[in-house]
């Protein structure tokens, strides 16, 4: 089904239509892809540059880290998508940073250096998706028991029956 209203897809379209947006400006270099859909701005960055991207939007005024979670696009590749939601209290705007992860290497840099509040959220993603965050101060399971096998929120994790 097609989106019912026009959306801006692609880095060129977004930066052409909203060049003054602080997040678009701050990530002009780092962004690999961008999307403006349903009034929400999504900017894709490479895995290696997520910490730099966080610092860049922080400098641009996006002061509050809200959330990070993952989406499993199994069996597509790149399989995992990490979605970071960051809001600016002064601009009253939100930006979503996206990192794509190949199933061959499920490691992303931890952004706890930029926002310590990402600590629990990254632990949750690790616990339920099995994505590792390099540089996290204590990456242990948070919801599931410590001896649990498997990662429940992955799409190939069975919902019922024996594992």
């Amino acid at each position, binding site marked *: *089904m097609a989106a019912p209203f026009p959306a801006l897809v692609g880095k060129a379209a977004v930066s052409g239509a909203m060049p003054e947006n602080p997040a678009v400006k701050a990530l002009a270099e780092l962004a690999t892809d961008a999307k403006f859909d*349903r009034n929400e701005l999504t900017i894709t960055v490479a895995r290696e540059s997520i910490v730099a991207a966080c610092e860049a939007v922080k400098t641009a005024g996006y002061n509050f880290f*809200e*959330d990070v979670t993952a989406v499993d696009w199994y069996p597509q590749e790149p399989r995992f998508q990490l979605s970071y939601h960051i809001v600016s209290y002064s601009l*009253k705007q939100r930006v979503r940073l996206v990192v794509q992860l190949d199933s061959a290497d499920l490691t992303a840099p931890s952004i706890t250096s930029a926002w310590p*509040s990402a600590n629990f959220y990254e632990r949750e993603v690790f616990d339920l998706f099995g994505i590792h965050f390099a540089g996290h101060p204590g990456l242990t399971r948070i919801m599931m*028991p410590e001896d649990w096998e498997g990662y429940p929120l992955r799409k190939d994790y069975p919902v019922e029956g024996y594992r």
Partner: protein
Amino acid sequence: MAPIVAPELLIPGVEDVVADARRHGNEGTGEHSMVLNMGPQHPSTHGVLRLVLEIDGEAIVSLAPDIGYLHTGIEKTCEAKFYQQVVPLTDRIDYLCPMTNNLAYCLAVEKLLDLEIPERAQILRVLLNEVTRIQSHLVWLGTHAMDIGALTVFLYCFREREETLRIFEAVSGQRMMTSYFRIGGLALEPPMGFDEQVRNFLDIMPARIDQYENLLTGNPIWMGRLKGVGYLSPEDAIALGVTGPPARASGIDWDLRRDMPYCGYEKFKFDVPVSTVGDVWARYVVRVQEMRESVKICRQALDMLQGMTGPIVADAPKIVLPNREQMKTQMESLIHHFKIVTEGFGVPAGEVYQAVESPRGEMGYYVVSDGTAKPYRVHMRNPSFATLQALETMCKGRLLADVVAVIGSIDIVLGEIDR
């Protein structure tokens, strides 16, 4: 840590607790500190929160929350349900503000569908959300006061909470797990006499809040236990992801209802109470003031609803269930009803994040659709989960007894932390 008691005299399980504490990052300075396990079954942890505390005498050296005891995999369950079947699940995340959860989820899906909601339904949603806020704050105040030792307040708060639950029962037929909001509007017309019932409640409420304040605000024991305890600086509040009343008590002037309005909140006039003190006392003051503001919003909503007629659901027959009368008399409605119930409705592919101001802070729903009738991914950003991270900062260096006061003041609900 050096063994204090001979190993054979140790209570079985103590070693596990110590090992667990080490795993949670408690280093143990060795000579003077000991590890104390608090919870998960503890009357003042407001659910099944487990804290691994390291104490030196009475002072907190470090504190690590251990959560997950209520993890029921709601996010996973959502992926196996139709969009409309997720609504009852959202009630069970934060059982003290089911309407707020319903609202956040419905708004997110409506954003995906680009669905316009009739004004009357929006105002009713705001009204019920504010009643929910009062209700949640009443439970918080009652249990918080009970933790400190003021049992009377608990009984008074639950007297008024009963009235709010009666309002919920009147509109939805349920006292707690209401599921009253639907994608596209509301489930039912509010019953006859609803306006009068809510007005009666709003008329008594300000005097009742005065009554609680009479019991607590000037009370020397209450002041002694709350003032100067559990300080959180505004910088820490931002860094640790604290939102809602605890953040506003630390001087962060941010309320999603006012700053990023949703569901027509921009039509209402209200103040956002902010304090710069940042301690447990400030959180108490902010929340009590919020209850008074909520009463104001409810009054405005009732006045707007006065004489207003119109539908409570959007005009979208493929998404909203037809009413019973239509379904029994019109062929088309019957087909729509059958299709929605048996195969749901497709939602255009995309992703949205919808945040609302819950009684505890920012509650956000991240919904990803792949174009089918079932959500591809639903993630909840819950305020308690983030606020819990700040617990150590608030408690460190303070007395053990203050931990109870601080837990009460951040008003966590373990159901939404664990999901």
